[in-house]
C-alpha cells in the first residue's frame, strides 16, 4: 500500500527555493582509519527506516504536495570507492557537488572513500528533509549508534522520531504567547540590491565548493575580540564578511548593506528529542548603516543590528503565520506563485552552522581529523557563506554554480576575509 508523508511548510518553502539554489546540504568528514563498512551500511538503513523521508519521493501535487515513501536498496544511496590519496580532493568534490532531484526515491547520498588506510565520508542530503541543525544531530546520532553497534552490539535504532511540523516551535509557549506568535503576520524578506560580484551566467557554469580555514589561534583571537565588544563569534564572523565584501564588491562605504543570517528556531523548543528531523531555520536581517571607519566600528554596527533581533522573544518567528496562511488557503500551485511574488531571496546570506563536535563524531575511538558542513549550492547572483568549526578550526565555505572566474572571485573574497580577520586580531 502506498505510504505518504505530509509535505511540511518548510519542505514546500525549500522546494520553492529551487529557483535560487540546488537545495543540497553537504558534509565531509575525514578519519585516520578504515571504518567498518558493513556496520556503516546497517546503521544507515536503520536511520532511513527511522526517518522514512530519506527514502521518499516528493510529489509536486498541484493542490497538496506530499512525500511518497519508496522501497529502496541502500547500495543505491552509498558510493564505496578505494582511491589513492591524490584522488581524494577530486572524488570528494565530484561527490559533494551532485544534485539529488526531489522526485528521486532517495533523498540522501553517502560516499565512503578508502584511501591509504584512511576514510573520507561525504554526505549529501536534500534540504527539504532537514536543515543543518538536524543534520548535525543526524551525524552525531549516527556515530553514536555506529559505535554502540560495533563495540557493544547494541541495535542502532536510537534515532529521534516525531512530528516534522514547523508548529513545534510554538510547543513550549504559553497559550497567550502561542496566540501572539501565531499572529505575527509580517513579510521579513531582505530588501537589499547589493550583490556578490560574481560573473553573469555562462554555459560552462557548474557547481563548486570553495573552502577556507581559519586557524585555531585566529579562532581564539576572534572569540576574545567578541568578548571585548560584547559580540558573539557569529557577530565577529559577520563583521569580517561585511568588511571583505565592501572591498571585494567596491560598495560605496556609505551604503547600507544587509546580510541575512540563518537562525535556528530550535531555540524556542526546550526539548527537540521528541520531534522528527525537519527544518527549523529562519533568517534575521543583519543590516549595517555604512561600513565602519575601522572594522571595530563595523563590528559594533553588526552587534547593534543583531541585538535588535536577540531581544525579541519571538526571534525568527515572524513571517511563519503569513507563509502558513499562504499555503493553507490556496492550492499549492497557486500559493507558490503568490508567495514567490512576496518573497525575495536574500542576495547575501550567512549560515553559521556551528560546532561539529569531534568527540561526538568519533568512530571506534577515532576522532575525525577534519570536516565541515555547508549549505546549498546557490545560483548566481545569490551567495551563502557557511561556517562550521571543528577542534577550534573554522571552515568557511561557499557553494556556487559558476565558472573559473567565479572561483577566482570567491578565492579573492576569502583572501580579503582573512585580511579582515587579521585586522580584527590586531585591533
Amino acid at each position, binding site marked *: 500500500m502506498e505510504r505518504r508523508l505530509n509535505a511540511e511548510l518548510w519542505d514546500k518553502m525549500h522546494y520553492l527555493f529551487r529557483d535560487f539554489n540546488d537545495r543540497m546540504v553537504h558534509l565531509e568528514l575525514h578519519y585516520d582509519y578504515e571504518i567498518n563498512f558493513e556496520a556503516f551500511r546497517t546503521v544507515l538503513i536503520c536511520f532511513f527506516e527511522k526517518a522514512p523521508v530519506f527514502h521518499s519521493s516528493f510529489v509536486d501535487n498541484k493542490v497538496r504536495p506530499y512525500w511518497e515513501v519508496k522501497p529502496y*536498496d541502500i547500495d543505491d544511496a552509498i558510493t564505496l570507492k578505494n582511491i589513492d590519496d591524490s584522488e581524494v580532493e577530486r572524488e570528494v568534490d565530484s561527490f559533494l557537488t551532485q544534485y539529488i532531484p526531489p522526485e528521486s526515491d532517495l533523498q540522501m547520498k553517502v560516499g565512503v572513500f578508502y584511501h591509504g588506510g584512511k576514510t573520507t565520508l561525504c554526505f549529501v542530503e536534500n534540504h527539504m528533509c532537514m536543515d543543518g541543525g538536524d543534520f548535525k544531530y543526524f551525524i552525531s546520532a549516527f556515530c553514536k549508534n555506529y559505535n554502540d553497534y560495533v563495540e557493544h552490539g547494541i541495535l542502532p535504532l536510537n534515532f529521534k522520531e516525531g512530528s516534522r511540523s514547523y508548529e513545534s516551535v510554538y510547543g513550549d509557549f504559553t497559550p497567550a504567547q502561542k496566540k501572539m506568535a501565531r499572529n505575527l503576520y509580517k513579510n521579513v524578506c531582505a530588501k537589499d540590491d547589493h550583490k556578490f560580484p560574481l560573473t553573469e551566467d555562462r554555459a560552462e557554469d557548474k557547481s563548486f565548493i570553495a573552502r577556507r580555514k581559519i586557524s585555531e589561534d585566529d579562532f581564539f583571537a576572534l572569540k576574545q575580540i567578541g568578548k571585548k565588544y560584547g559580540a558573539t563569534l557569529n557577530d565577529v564572523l559577520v563583521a569580517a564578511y561585511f568588511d571583505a565584501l565592501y572591498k571585494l564588491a567596491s560598495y560605496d562605504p556609505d551604503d547600507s548593506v544587509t546580510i541575512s543570517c540563518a537562525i535556528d528556531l530550535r531555540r524556542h523548543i526546550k526539548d527537540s528529542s521528541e520531534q522528527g528531523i525537519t527544518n527549523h531555520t529562519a533568517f534575521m536581517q543583519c543590516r549595517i548603516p555604512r561600513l565602519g571607519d575601522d572594522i571595530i566600528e563595523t563590528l559594533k554596527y553588526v552587534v547593534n543590528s543583531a541585538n535588535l533581533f536577540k531581544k525579541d522573544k519571538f526571534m525568527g518567528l515572524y513571517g511563519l503565520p503569513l507563509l502558513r496562511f499562504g499555503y493553507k488557503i490556496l492550492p499549492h500551485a497557486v500559493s507558490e506563485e503568490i508567495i514567490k511574488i512576496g518573497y525575495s531571496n536574500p542576495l547575501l546570506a550567512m549560515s553559521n552552522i556551528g560546532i561539529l563536535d569531534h568527540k561526538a563524531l568519533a568512530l571506534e575511538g577515532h576522532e575525525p581529523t577534519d570536516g565541515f558542513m555547508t549549505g546549498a549550492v546557490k545560483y548566481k547572483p545569490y551567495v551563502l557563506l557557511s561556517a562550521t568549526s571543528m577542534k577550534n578550526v573554522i571552515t568557511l565555505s561557499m557553494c556556487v554554480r559558476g565558472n573559473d572566474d567565479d572561483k577566482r572571485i570567491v578565492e579573492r573574497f576569502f583572501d580579503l576575509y582573512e585580511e579582515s580577520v587579521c585586522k580584527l586580531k590586531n585591533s
Partner: protein
Amino acid sequence: MNNFLEYIEKSFENMKETESLYLYKQKLIAKMTERANELVAAGLKDDKIICAIIMDEYPDLVKNYKASMKEKATVSKKTKTGSLMTVGALGGIFGAVCLYLAVSFLTGAWNKSWMLLLGGIFAVLVLIFVTVSGKLTKKSGKFGLISRILCMFAVFLIAVYMFLFTTVIVPVSGNWIIFILSVPFAMIFDMLLSYKFNKKTGIFSILLYIPVIFTLFYVVLGVAKVLPWHPGWLLILFGILVDFVVVAVRLVSGTKVKEEEDAWSED
C-alpha cells in the same frame, strides 16, 4: 519469522482466542513478513535488527487490536446509519408518491396535489443537505465551503417551495418577494453558522453580509409598502453603521490582546 510469531503470541497470551483475534493475528503475520521482506530488499542482513525495527513499529499489539475492533464497530455503525438514511430518504419519497396518488385519486385535484409530491422530495433533499453539511462541519471542525453551499441550497429549496405553495395552493400576490427574502435569510443562516464555527474568518462574512441584508430588507419592506422608500433608505445606512459597530467591538477586543502582549514584552 519465529520471532514475530513469538512476539504476537506473547502479546495476546492473556486474551481469549476468538475468530476476530485469529484473523487479526493472521493479518499481522502477513504485514510483518511483508515488512521484513522490504527491509531485506533494502539491504539489511541482521535478523535481530529486522525484528527490532518491526516490533518497534508495532509497540502495543493489544492496544492496536482493541482500536481496530473499535474502528470496525464504528464503521459498521456508520454503515448502518448510512443505510438507514438511504432507506429513510427512499421511504420518504415513496410515502410522498403514495400520498400524492391517494389524494389525487380521491379529490381529483391533480393540478394541486403534485405539491405533495414536490414537498416530499424537497423535504428529503433539505434533510440530506443539512445532514451532510452537519457531518462535514463535525468532521473538519469548520463550516467549510461545501457545507455553506449545501445550507444555502436548503434555504433556497424552502423558498422555492413556499413560492410555489403561495402560487398554486394559496395564491398570494407579490409572492415573488419570497425569492428576494430568501437571500437575506440564507445569509443570516450562513453568517451565524460561520461565526460559530469559523471564529477567525467568520467576521468577514458578517461585515460583508450585514449591509447586503439591510439593503434587501429595505427593498422587501419598500415593495410591501411597510416602509416608505424615503426615508426608508436610512435602513441601508443603518446596516453600514452596524458594520462599524462590529469593527469597533472587534478592535476593542483586539486591543485587549495587544495590551496583554505589551505587558508580556516588558518582562
